[in-house]
């Protein structure tokens, strides 16, 4: 089970509201490569994973993604504090505001609500870990694109931290894939699926 800790993984203290920027950063909450999809992807992939080291990686990264979800939501909440109706209208935030006020609702930058279709659970160790590595890279690119659009260092700093974590997670999933492949037949990695077929132990 999970226990909530009343702290952020990395400090966030944004002084200047910027609803236009919030509307872009929200993609890392509810977009196709966002933190909500990431946590659900890894945590759901765990149950059929037969290697505990890999289950550990999926558990620990999936849990950290929940903390990232909270960080992104914190950025959004701080970027949309104390707004006047004029600021809301001028910034283009009105299209979000009309449905969600300044509440945090998972949508993409284009306003598409979160969809579980963004995530993959194939039940095959190589396919799932390859998907996870791609997912981390796609999230890294989204953060890179956001960094190009952000001027405020108070916003940029935690976004850079989140971007860095994507790189680290990519590395760890790479390790996990290696752990899986070491258990399989190097002449034919696809000879059996260790999540389904009875594997002959090497």
């Amino acid at each position, binding site marked *: *089970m999970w226990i909530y800790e009343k702290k952020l993984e990395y400090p966030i203290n944004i002084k200047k509201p910027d609803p236009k920027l919030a509307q872009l950063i929200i993609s890392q909450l509810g977009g196709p490569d966002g933190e909500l999809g990431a946590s659900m992807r890894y945590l759901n992939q*765990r*149950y059929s994973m037969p290697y*505990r*080291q890999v*289950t550990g990686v999926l558990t*620990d990264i999936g849990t950290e993604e929940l903390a990232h979800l909270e960080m992104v939501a914190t950025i959004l909440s701080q970027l949309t504090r104390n707004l006047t109706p004029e600021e809301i209208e001028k910034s283009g935030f009105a299209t979000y505001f009309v449905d969600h006020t300044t509440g945090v609702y998972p949508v993409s930058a284009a306003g598409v609500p979160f969809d579980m279709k963004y995530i993959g659970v194939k039940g095959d160790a190589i396919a799932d870990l390859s998907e996870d590595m791609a997912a981390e890279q796609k999230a890294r690119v989204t953060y890179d694109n956001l960094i190009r659009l952000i001027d405020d260092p108070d916003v940029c700093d935690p976004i850079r931290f989140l971007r860095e974590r994507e790189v680290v997670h990519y590395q760890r999933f790479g390790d996990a894939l290696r752990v899986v492949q070491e258990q399989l037949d190097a002449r034919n990695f696809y000879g059996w699926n260790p999540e389904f077929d009875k594997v002959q132990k090497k």
Partner: protein
Amino acid sequence: MNERQKLMQKIQACCFVLTETGLYLDTHPSCRKALRYFEKYRRMRDEAVRQYEQRYGALTYTGADTANGWNWVTEPFPWEA
């Protein structure tokens, strides 16, 4: 039920009391009876967790053994029972 399962059941029971009482306290923050109840089970939980982690392996990262390798990924996950 073996000793490990018994101790786990005690932790589950204590933690559930904390979940339930904590939830009640969220909306009744000055209820002295509930506060005392919470405190009693928190002590019981802390002691049970300490014993469990010493004997059977980590429940969280912070309880992991570092003297004999990283036992976080050697002990079974809960759905493997």
